[in-house]
């Protein structure tokens, strides 16, 4: 074996090893002839009524009752849905997406937000009562504690690095107030988007290829579809969630 061949083998080995090592992580590259994906998320059937909670404790801060509309339907369009491409190894850069949540009047605001995996989540407590920020990694019907920190002081800010290894979303709860619920979608690549008020979405600059497209909603069962992105082309896929 001559020196050049040896060097070549070494190079290939190093390349393979580094590729393998980076498989789990997203790599930012220049996207050539990226395609675009668009569509709409609609909801058919009766729009479920918001859930109401009666409150007995800390009523001076939390009020006597609260409502959470888990399924928000706007003229037949379903909102609070994230549409994303699953397991994209490399592609365009992330746009800035800072997740910041405030606890006001014993509510997580916003109820639904989006953040990038590996970044910090900032949680404020604007209430004069203690809350504990209990986050869960969601996988299907399972929820597993990600972190759970007490936050007794009004005006305090809690910053926690979020790094989900398997799930794509988190639930927020407070164990001192049964009616506090919130959700965060945690993006692992930049090919995701929160649908607009009319349920429409567009994802651009996608490297050509075939992908699993998913639509994620906090309480409805996820939907998925296979999509084919051709060079500089536009693909369309619509999702329909069904009510009762």
């Amino acid at each position, binding site marked *: 074996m001559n020196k050049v061949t040896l060097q070549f083998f070494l190079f290939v080995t190093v390349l393979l090893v580094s590729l393998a090592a980076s498989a789990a992580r997203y790599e930012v590259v220049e996207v050539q002839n990226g395609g675009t994906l668009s569509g709409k998320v609609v909801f058919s059937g009766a729009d479920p009524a918001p859930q109401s909670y009666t409150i007995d404790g800390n009523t001076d801060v939390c009020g006597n009752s609260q409502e959470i509309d888990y399924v928000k339907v706007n003229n037949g369009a379903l909102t609070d849905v994230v549409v994303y491409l699953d397991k994209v190894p490399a592609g365009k850069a992330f746009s800035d997406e800072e997740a910041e949540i405030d606890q006001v009047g014993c509510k997580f605001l916003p109820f639904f937000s989006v953040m990038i995996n590996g970044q910090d989540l900032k949680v404020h407590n604007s209430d004069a009562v203690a809350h504990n920020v209990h986050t869960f990694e969601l*996988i299907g019907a399972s929820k597993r*504690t990600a972190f759970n*920190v007490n936050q007794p002081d009004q005006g305090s*800010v809690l910053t926690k690095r979020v790094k989900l290894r398997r799930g794509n979303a988190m639930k927020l709860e407070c164990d001192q107030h049964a009616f506090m619920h919130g959700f965060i979608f945690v993006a692992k690549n930049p090919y995701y988007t929160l649908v607009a008020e009319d349920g429409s979405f567009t994802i651009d600059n996608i490297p050509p290829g075939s992908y699993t497209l998913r639509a994620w909603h906090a309480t409805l069962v996820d939907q998925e579809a296979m999509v084919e992105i051709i060079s500089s082309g536009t693909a369309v896929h619509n999702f329909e969630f069904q009510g009762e």
Partner: protein
Amino acid sequence: MKSMKVPVFWQAVIVIVTAYLVLDNAILPLMPASLIVSFMLIIVLGVLLYFARAEESWTEFKAPIIAVLRDDDKWVMRCSLLVVIPVLVSVIVYNSVRPSFDPPLELRQVHPSPPSKLNVYGKTFDLTTLENPVRTKILEQYKTDPDAAFGAYQSAVSAGSEVYYLNCFYCHGDLLDGEGPYSRGLYPLPTNFQDLGTIAQLQESYVFWRITTGGVGLPEGATPWNSVMPAWHEILNEQEVWEVIIFLYDAVGQVPRMWDAEVSRVVTSMKNEIESQRAQMSGREIYQHRCALCHGEQGAADTAVAEFLYPKPLDFTYGLLKFKTSPGELPARDEDIFNAISYGMDGTAMPGWTTLLSDEQISSLIPVIKSYDTFAAWAPEDADDEDFDDDGRYLKSDFRVITEQEPTDRQVSYTPESIALGREIAMDNCKECHGEEGRGNITSDKRLEDDWGNRVWPRDLTSPWTWRVTNGASRDETIRNIFMRATIGIPSTPMPALRAGSTADQDSVNLIDRWHLANYVYSLREKSTPPTNSTVLRAVEVTGALPESVTDPEWDEVPATTLWLMPNVVQGERLFTPLNDTITVRVLYNEDEISFLLDVTDRTDSRPGEPVSTKLQDENLTMFSDAIAIQFPKAGSYSTGPAVKKPQLQHGDARNQSTIWYWNAGSIDPAVPARSAILDGDGADKRLMARANNNTLTASGGWQHGRWRVMMKRQRDSVEVQDVDFEEGSFIPLSFANWDGSNGEVDSKHTLTGWYWLLLPSDTDNVVVYGTPLGAGAGTLLLGMVLIRSQRRKRKSQA
């Protein structure tokens, strides 16, 4: 060589002292004092007779005694004895006349003789020839096909272990040592099968007899015959009993006694072969052999046994350990896993495994547990997607080993100032779940769940015996462990961390304040009385009226005794998942009446319709009214000696009946006031009936800050002849029961204590207690002086 001859007198002394030491110490179980006294009398008499057999030895024997009494140069010794002997007599007399609070002696006949015939399962078994048919079949197969025989044996062991874990293990324990989760407070204690004096000494037919007929099947002479061991032939079929017997011998590595020596040899050689195979087991095989029955074959704790346990066995697929020492959200350290296996979890079904597994074997389980994790907790940071299976299990073995440990520096000393500061922090951070007094009564309206959706309740911080892991060897160590829990939280539960983890200024509670909090939490144990080891409850006499209500401050002066509650896992509809674990009792009496104050830590005031409890109510359980009861034998249904006799613990039986004082909290919706009743018990299978139009029991109660306090009062001299009289100086059996209504406890589903003794101490008569020993001492002194005087005279006259 010059022979050293011990003087005859000292020979006698040595023989007597040695005999006493042997009787007192070398013979197990301990000999009753009365028996020692009679043996010693015989021995002393024998020794005296021995030396008195000839004039010569008798003279030699008494020579030193006479010398002490007479000789001029022995006056020091003489005077000393003149002081020592009367004092000794006084002490002995005092010990025999002083008031004694020792309970009646209950000797246990360990292996009562079996009957020759046993009637169960609709047939008659001849116990003199009966062998285990499951084993017989395996041995038959062993002759022709040993491999198949080992397979059949393994299946029998598996089947038997399932029977054991669904029925027996609650009392007899995971390690078969008689220390199961609900064994506390039982008397007699559940049998320890690890003890070589138990099944290893017995034939399988004997074990079959004991299991199928239980406590009620014990012969009349077998004391005590009030064991709560059920008659299992009513619950298990014949095959299951034989299989569980195979499992018992297998689990403790023993073989049964057998008639046929040849068969016995084969059974022993099979056992040896299996044991040598097991000694070579890998971590994964040990897991399947020892852990899988509760924690599941794939670590998911989805087992039949788990359904009957509270708290549930840990599900390893979430990669979380409740009690860990790594900071923040880092997965548990290997030491945390190792310690959890080695020392177990107090108050749960998880025992410490050091008696059955070596340190190496326990360490070999760590990667097995990590391999069941589906959340990539211990998988390396840069692991490939391809290295995980579809369920998310990491398939390689290079798991992360966490070395970082949460620091416990700058510990604050345990002072009243620190405790007071800690209380303020607790009110801001802990009160919503642990309650104002720390008893774990949720004051917010959230039903707390763990990550798996199982109901969880905050710890009662006033009862450290209900804690897991956190109790240390010293106060400072325990405080450090509390600090650790408060700092890190308890992952997979609602218990949050008080340290945010990223920067110190974001911590919910700063380092020093967390130490104050830990000191405060430690101090809460002073509010409670830990469970007793004694079997006696002493009542306190008062002159004048007894307290009118449970809030009367007079109760605070009365010494409290805390007793273990165990769920009824033996009779009728059974309860496997209790929440209340102890009852604290205070007893007062005056000339006419006796009054009991019963405290039960109960996180909810379960009177159906009560708003807070209704919000917290477990949706899978119906809420019933909380209730509490005291049971006494009827007059004549018990005996304190010479052989102790008590009725069957659960409502006696037809011949030995019990009287039960019962109080029920009532409900708010529908509006039913609290009520009390006198019930008559004549067997666990009979429905308890309340005595009609009976208002002899006065009872009242209230719930506050996570605790029921109930008072029950009745006349001491029973109005109704069948009931016991509460006489001073006599020991009366009593037991307690508690129904936690929010836990779905009703009828036979409830918790109970074993039998304890109630004692109303008789008045101390000072003339008798101090006068008698003084008199005896003075008398001895006088006698001694007279003796010396006469001996000295004799000497003079001889001289």
